[in-house]
């Protein structure tokens, strides 16, 4: 795969949600409470197929909780979630995973006791058929299936994310950036139709962020996977997302193309701030002078 012309958000056909196509994901009127604490209130938005949609918002706005509702870990009190036209709000997390919802986690959730390869294979779990008896006997169906997915993972995922050199290492020994990449690989092994990334570049420096950005774009372009991501790195969000949803105190306060959203006064007040390091420096120094 060589460098390809990256489509600008403006000319992407599926860039903005259009009324015509069934949205990949449609969230409507979602409300989630923990005791008295309202975490989400009436959240609604659509994710267009093949797009990158970013969810941003202050800390504690409920972004991760939203992801948890979508993947089924939290049960919202109200609202519906439809995935490719099918209501999935009542399904258990594994059933959602089987339909093609995959995600990564804010605090890396790899399985420490397994190698990189096994972690990635685990992503294929929902698409495998081996039952307990097969597994105990191994020869036959289980073996065939294992070897099949091994080939697929090697060729599609491991090569793609450039993880060849570490496949047999236990994940515990990996550096942070690589762990994030293995998590992505595991999610990709699930053959996702919708990939949810919770802060994929948190804790990465500029260079590593660039690598991750490249992978995300490649997944979208080469696999045609729809991507929903939470991220605080506004540089990344601005550059690669097609659509942005802004949450504040559990409510959607803005939606639209990145450029529109960043001009929104409320978004600036609640989330972005001045957003300019030069200004920050000037302010700090200014105060110092004062």
């Amino acid at each position, binding site marked *: 795969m060589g460098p390809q012309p990256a489509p600008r958000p403006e000319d992407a056909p599926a860039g903005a949600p259009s009324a015509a196509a069934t949205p990949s994901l449609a969230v409507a009127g979602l409300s989630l409470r923990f005791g008295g604490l309202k975490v989400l209130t009436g959240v609604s938005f659509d994710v267009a197929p093949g797009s990158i949609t970013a969810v941003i918002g202050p800390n504690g706005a409920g972004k*991760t909780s939203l*992801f948890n509702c979508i993947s089924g*870990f939290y049960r919202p009190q109200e609202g519906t979630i439809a995935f490719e036209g099918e209501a999935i709000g009542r399904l258990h997390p594994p059933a959602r995973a089987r339909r093609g919802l995959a995600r990564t*986690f804010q605090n890396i959730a790899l399985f420490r006791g397994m190698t990189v390869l096994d972690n990635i294979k685990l992503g294929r779990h929902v698409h495998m058929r081996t039952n307990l008896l097969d597994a105990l006997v191994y020869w036959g169906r289980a073996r065939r299936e294992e070897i099949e997915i091994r080939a697929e993972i090697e060729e599609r995922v491991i090569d793609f994310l450039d993880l060849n050199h570490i496949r047999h290492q236990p994940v515990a020994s990996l550096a942070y950036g690589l762990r994030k990449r293995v998590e992505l690989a595991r999610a990709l092994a699930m053959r996702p139709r919708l990939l949810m990334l919770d802060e994929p570049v948190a804790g990465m420096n500029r260079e590593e962020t660039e690598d991750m950005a490249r992978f995300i774009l490649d997944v979208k372009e080469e696999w045609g996977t729809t991507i929903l991501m939470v991220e605080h790195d506004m540089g990344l969000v601005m550059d690669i997302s097609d659509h942005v949803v802004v949450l504040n105190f559990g409510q959607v306060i803005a939606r639209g193309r990145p450029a529109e959203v960043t001009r929104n006064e409320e978004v600036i007040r609640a989330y972005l701030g001045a957003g300019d390091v030069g200004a920050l420096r000037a302010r700090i120094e200014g105060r110092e002078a004062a």
Partner: protein
Amino acid sequence: MEGFDPLFFAEVTLAGLGSGALLALTGLAFVLIYKATRVVNLAIGEMLMVGAYLFFAFAAGLGLPAWGAIPLALAGGGLLGAAIERAIIRPMLGESPIAIFMVTIGLGSVLVGLVEIVWSPNPTQLPDFIGAAPVFLGEAYVSRKIAVGFAVACLVIAGFLLAFRTWRGGVALRATAADQAAAYSCGIDVPAVFCAAWALAGVAAAAAGILVGAVGGISPTMGVFGLSALVVVIVGGLDSVAGALVGGLVVGLLEAWSGTFLGGEYKIVATFSLLLAVLVVRPYGLFGTAEIERL
């Protein structure tokens, strides 16, 4: 049983509360350790047993009077706790909870074996230091030992409850349990906290051991009392002092009632059924704090 006799019921209930207080005291020892170190200490019964034997050694062996032997035995229990912490718990810092849990099982076995070697496996009696004159509450009879045990246990637990409310050390204890590295970084002397928690628990266990031994005699197998205490802390919540008290009384009552009205062989089933029931309804016990689970 023919008919319902309220006096008899009251007496049984009082006896149940009495033994419940001893359970609560043992539970307290358990909770202290859990609160500070997140160790589920299955050897608590054996620590109790060693405490009772220490008292036996000082009182019967050396012939000290009770007021001399009791403090010595309590101090011995505290030392034992501190020694255990130093020798086998500290090297396990950072290991999985299962591993540490198993270490305490091993510890229990070692303690039983050592006591058998030193004092022989045969059961004996503690010298009497409480006296035998029965106590009557109204018309209801209460064994004196049980009454004394109840009073002591309640006083000690009340003391700890008060201390945890007001004393800064309580925060240190919980902070250490939550995150050792972070506790260090806050200037908390983590090893000292660990050591103190185990020593205090050792003292509490020894106290319980002396009382239990006074009531029922001592033997190397008296550590099984710890199993009932385990039920107590699960019912009350592993990390709650108040839970230990309530759990102790509940289990004591349940044992007394089931033992009397169903028959002694039902005691254990009754308590363990209670345990299962509580766990299913409240997985962290009545007063235990739920673990924060977030993704």
